């Protein structure tokens, strides 16, 4: 018998591949179209030719306006909120994973915040920031995003910490470490990949956030999603600019998703226990 005997019949394989290719196209084609439009002169955006000449006109137009500024804002807000939220999330997540801190109620509360529709939170946060004179400021946005990220990151990190064998901490404790020492010297280093993955997820979440940014930011503190929406003017949609903006907005996410994959694939405690 040849090895071919194990494979499904040729007709089935062709059908299977055709189906998969169709699904891939459904996902990839719009992206490819956006990429194409972004590199084509605006008046040819809707032309039927596949590639009617190459032009960086859209990008130049976009970056000559406020988009560069928005890009910077997005980076500051996303990074800042993650950097603020992550340490708190790590400590809370660890407490939730290892101790009975807060009991069931605290854990439920944390999940419950995730169930509220964002609209319900926008106005209260606006009022809060107004009281602190932080509306239209990046600081305000960073703080709000950090607060939004906190429950989510805590939940993810709790999972990571739970997956670390408690024996590791016990070993550290008998070796003479304090509870904090065991956390700092053993648990944190061991869960670095998890922290990185959580950080990247938090970054993406903040990067894509629209509603809060719309309400809480002003012209100089606009983030990318708001800036992109603003391209929809009364003169119609500037499709070329939007396409260029989308391509630029996606870039960091492409890089981030590569990182996430690497961190998640790397085992956390491989080799430490049998």
């Amino acid at each position: 018998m040849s090895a071919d005997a194990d494979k499904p019949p040729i007709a089935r394989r062709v059908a299977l591949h055709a189906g998969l290719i169709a699904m891939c196209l459904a996902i990839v084609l719009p992206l490819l179209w956006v990429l194409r439009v972004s590199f084509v002169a605006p008046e040819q955006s809707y032309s039927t030719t596949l590639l009617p000449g190459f032009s960086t006109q859209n990008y130049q137009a976009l970056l000559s306006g406020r988009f560069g500024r928005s890009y910077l804002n997005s980076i500051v807000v996303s990074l800042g909120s993650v950097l603020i939220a992550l340490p708190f999330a790590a400590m809370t997540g660890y407490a939730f994973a290892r101790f009975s801190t807060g009991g069931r109620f605290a854990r439920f509360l944390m999940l419950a915040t995730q169930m509220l529709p964002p609209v319900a939170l926008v106005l209260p946060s606006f009022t809060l920031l107004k009281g602190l004179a932080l509306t239209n400021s990046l600081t305000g946005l960073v703080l709000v995003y950090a607060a939004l990220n906190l429950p989510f990151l805590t939940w993810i990190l709790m999972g990571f910490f739970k997956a670390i064998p408690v024996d590791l901490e016990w070993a550290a404790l008998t070796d003479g470490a304090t509870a904090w020492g065991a956390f700092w010297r053993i648990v944190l280093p061991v869960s670095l990949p998890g922290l990185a993955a959580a950080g990247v997820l938090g970054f993406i979440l903040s990067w894509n956030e629209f509603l809060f940014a719309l309400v809480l930011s002003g012209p100089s503190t606009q983030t990318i999603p708001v800036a992109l929406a603003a391209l929809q003017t009364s003169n119609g949609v500037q499709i070329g600019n939007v396409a260029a903006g989308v391509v630029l907005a996606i870039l960091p996410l492409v890089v981030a998703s590569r990182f996430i994959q690497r961190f998640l694939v790397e085992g956390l405690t491989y080799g430490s226990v049998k």
Partner: protein
Amino acid sequence: MASIDLRSVSKLYPNGSYGVRDVDLRIENGEFVIFLGPSGCGKSTTLRMIAGLESISAGDLFIGDRNMNRVPPRDRNVAVVFQSYALYPHMSVRANMGFGLKMRGATGEEIARKTEETAALLGLGQLLDRKPAALSGGQRQRVALGRAIVREPDVFLLDEPLSNLDAQLRAEMRLELVKLHRRLGRTTIHVTHDQVEAMTMGDRICIMREGRLIQAGRPLDIYADPVNLFVARFLASPAMNLLPVRLSQEAGSLVIDGGEGLRFTVPARHVAAYAPHAGTQVIFGLRPEDIYEAPQGARTQPFALRVTAVEALGAEIILSGTAGGGTARPLEITARLSRHARVQAGETVTLHADLLPAHLFDPVSETAIARPSLRGAA
């Protein structure tokens, strides 16, 4: 001084089950104690309570003269080899072994020297710069052992530290551990499932079952005088033959009657102890090694064994067969003969049992019927 004193110590888990129940045990300073028992009997839980990693639900724990119930692990100067090894995955072997010294404020020079010494002792010299992920199971286990040894603590708690080693390495490490114990003289608890480790390494064996301490004593004492059927079955392999028989008084002597010609007379030495049980069903416990192919003077009494299987192990032969009991339910008996015995499956052979070391057990309470011990007296 690091004696360990457990006073009716219990561990009640939050799910309502007891991991350990009412354990009373005093381990003297410098003693080497073996914990033996089936999986889930509470050996690791007991170690964790001694190390301070698990709270004590009831009872008191003393190390030396100090009540340790509420003392954190780092102030107990106890080193643990975890059943799972629990090596720090992000640290090299060197850093793993040095961590405890570092936490206790040793100088860099001291850490380096002690780590190198211990690594050499355990044959890990070449592996000091590897991460745990790049080690074999046996190597990891030795690193775990090294991490404990290097600290020279007051108390060693070793949870199956040799379980993952091959036979030769295990024999070597067994010797190393015993030598180490002799040299350092530290109080040691060693958990094992291995009969040889249990019998040869320790001053005392503690046999546990379902969270309770069943019997504690010198290895040969427990072997000679198991307190109940569980211990009789558990210690030694092949296990003791446990035969349901009838004890009866006949013509001035006490007879163990297994039916169909399986009859033994109770030795005069034990008659006084066993006589009150005459006329009842008992369990007759006879070790396979107390059965011989030839009579050993007046000590032994003959019986016929229908051999069903022969296992030649080289140094000895393990015979399995049936005897007595009537054809409906013959009694299964295992015998351990010298390698010179010539026996084949299917034969019926006459063997000779030494009744002096044998025991009788109460079939209901499963405890041994008390009789004068042969040990100490002998």
